């Protein structure tokens, strides 16, 4: 543990080696900082997205398995969805498992000649035949089989892809511990392109800490902040679903492909209603006392057999309630949960899937696509046809679904409807129409995600910022988040892991980082990311703003085009300067 070891895996040769990379971790801490460098070292520049030249890097950080809420893994890869830098974070037991197996990072390269899965432990890698797992309808079943077939119960992660990944849907996810995901940007697609069905990583090694009293003190301080301070209350109680009603009240909940920003049915899909009527169990990632993972239950009778029921558990979060709920006008909670379940079964990113279906519905209603393209009669609020459409995205039986499986940016180039194709930098829109900061954030964030810099939060807290001030704020936040994701902290705990706490936590472990050095490192990682994006062809001038966001009032009222343009101009200057100096 904490030996700065990187496990390099070559899927083509079915070989591996372990190398000490203290050079890397001493400089970049770990997590995204280290993963970015490993990606740069190993990926073949400019290579085709789904070719052997694409590389997957997983990394944990120096606090992983040592402190509460340092519970995530960062994956870095080239995104098959955006065609550029890809990054995705997930929890479950993945972080603890990687660290306890003795690794700080994994590099996976090459393409296997046949479907395989890997069992990774303290002694290295076993390459296992996945011919039987390939093509299984449900990611749940794959997990069930691998639970029985692999060692390390309780101290392992089982990451797997669904058929969406196998069939190269560009927004396929990787599922970990059934209910957590490397959701965005198509990591599951890269797995699929490498014929890599699953990774089982297990281990339970530990390290002796030299300053044990000091370590326990800092641990207790963080633990108390997590469970007593109230800062995690919303995640603890209703979970992220608690945001549905407030965001709807603000007039910021994208509804029916953002033709509206308030949803009549919000009450029915709210965290409050779900908790009262559907919540069946709460579970946690390893080393997280918050337990934000909320599982709803659907109890369904079998139509062909009296007194015969099945009970299904479905993980819900704000992002899914938005993308598969309000965005599709669905307020029937049972229908919505079953739709979410189908997305989980196939192994798709829920946000991209919902936004793709929302675009398809509007394009259909406007006559841009026909019923014989769509094969099902999509209509706002009707969950069953959407569930069928999810299966069709996975199967891609015709040209239309082949296009939709590439994302809305691609589909709208072929079928039209660009103005309401809600994609930013190639990534489908997250669930916040709060105002300009949210949208600028999607555009300029390194991974075009609301998590890059949380513009939705700036929109809710601040008014009257100039475009330049807003961009500067977003970049400053994104830079600090590079430290959080190098450590690798769950962003929900960002209010706990303030610079002073991070410094304390690192001090005990023997790292010499004062607050200024941490911030400088964050700026440096940010610049490295921007430079990497530039080298892969990203140009701010080519960013497209969907017209739709200007047509529907946000929490800040109608968004001003000139304001957005000024913000992007300011960002372009910063980007060009950054790229020129890197």
């Amino acid at each position, binding site marked *: *543990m904490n030996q700065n070891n990187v496990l390099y895996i070559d899927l083509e040769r079915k070989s591996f080696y372990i190398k000490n990379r203290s050079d890397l971790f001493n400089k970049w801490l770990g997590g995204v900082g280290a993963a970015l460098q490993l990606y740069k070292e190993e990926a073949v520049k400019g290579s085709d997205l789904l070719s052997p030249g694409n590389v997957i890097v997983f990394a944990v950080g120096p606090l992983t398995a040592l402190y509460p809420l340092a519970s995530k893994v960062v994956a870095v890869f080239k995104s098959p969805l955006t065609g550029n830098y890809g990054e995705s974070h997930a929890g479950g037991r993945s972080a603890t498992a990687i660290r306890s197996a003795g690794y700080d990072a994994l590099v996976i390269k090459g393409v296997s000649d046949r479907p395989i899965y890997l069992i990774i432990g303290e002694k290295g890698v076993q390459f296992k035949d996945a011919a039987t797992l390939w093509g299984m309808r449900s990611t749940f079943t794959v997990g069930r089989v691998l639970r029985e077939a692999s060692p390390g119960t309780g101290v392992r992660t089982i990451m797997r892809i669904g058929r969406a990944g196998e069939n190269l849907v560009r927004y396929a996810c990787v599922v970990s511990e059934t209910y957590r995901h490397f959701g965005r940007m198509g990591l599951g697609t890269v797995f699929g392109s490498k014929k890599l069905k699953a990774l089982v990583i297990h281990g339970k090694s530990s390290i002796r800490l030299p300053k044990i009293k000091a370590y326990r003190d800092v641990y207790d301080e963080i633990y108390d902040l997590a469970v007593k301070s109230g800062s995690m209350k919303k995640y603890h109680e209703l979970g992220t679903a608690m945001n549905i009603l407030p965001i709807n009240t603000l007039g910021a909940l994208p509804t029916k492909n953002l033709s509206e920003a308030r949803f009549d049915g919000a009450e029915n899909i709210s965290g409050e209603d779900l908790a009262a009527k559907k919540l069946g169990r709460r*579970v*946690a990632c390893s080393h997280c006392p918050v337990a934000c993972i909320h599982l709803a239950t659907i109890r369904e009778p079998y139509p062909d057999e009296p007194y015969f029921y099945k009970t299904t558990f479905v993980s819900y979060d704000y992002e899914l309630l938005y993308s598969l709920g309000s965005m599709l006008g669905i307020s029937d909670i049972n229908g919505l949960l079953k739709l979410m379940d189908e997305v989980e079964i196939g192994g798709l990113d829920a946000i991209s899937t919902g936004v793709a279906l929302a675009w398809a519905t509007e394009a259909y209603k406007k006559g841009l696509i026909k019923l014989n393209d769509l094969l099902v009669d999509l209509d706002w609020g009707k969950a069953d046809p959407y569930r069928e459409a999810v299966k069709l995205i996975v199967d891609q039986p015709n040209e239309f679904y082949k296009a939709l499986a590439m994302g809305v940016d691609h589909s709208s180039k072929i079928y039209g409807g660009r103005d309401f194709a809600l994609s930013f930098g190639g990534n489908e829109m997250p669930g916040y129409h709060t105002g300009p900061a949210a949208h600028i954030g999607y555009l300029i964030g390194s991974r075009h995600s609301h998590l890059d810099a949380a513009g939705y939060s700036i929109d809710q807290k601040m008014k009257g910022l100039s475009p330049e001030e807003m961009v500067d704020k977003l970049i400053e936040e994104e830079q600090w988040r590079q430290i959080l994701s190098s450590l690798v902290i769950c962003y929900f705990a960002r209010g706990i892991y303030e610079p002073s706490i991070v410094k304390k936590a690192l001090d005990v472990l023997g790292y010499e980082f004062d607050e200024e050095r941490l911030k400088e490192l964050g700026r440096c990682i940010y610049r490295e990311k921007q430079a990497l994006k530039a080298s892969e062809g990203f140009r701010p001038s080519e960013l497209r703003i969907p017209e739709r966001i200007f047509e529907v009032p946000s929490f800040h009222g109608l968004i001003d085009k000139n304001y957005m343009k000024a913000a992007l101009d300011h960002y372009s200057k910063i980007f060009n300067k950054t790229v020129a100096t890197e």
Partner: protein
Amino acid sequence: MKRLVIMDAERCVGCQLCMFACSRRLGFAGLDKSALHVKSVGGFERGFTVVVCRACMDPPCLRACPVNALRARDGGGVILDLSKCIGCRFCERACDIGAVFWDDSMNKPVICVHCGYCVDYCNFRVLGVEEMIRR
């Protein structure tokens, strides 16, 4: 004497903070010094099993030890004398509930001493400490 008890395993969220606490008690960060174990019943949706020593009054693990490395603890359970243990794993096999864990790095068993340190880190009141009633 007190013993550690599972108050209600249905409340367990699987965070494993108890396991981390147990290793931390001994000065380690990680899981391999932990004398209790949390695993899913068969998928997270089914809930969790928490395995820990029940503080038997007549411990099978003690009876299985060929070198007297385990002695009876007042109030139930056992105390391990590391210097006598030869790492034969008989105790591990003797425990029906699987509460004798194995520290691979030392090749020695790990058995709960019922100190209750983990209880303070269980945010969901799965774990508790109770006074042992002599049966």
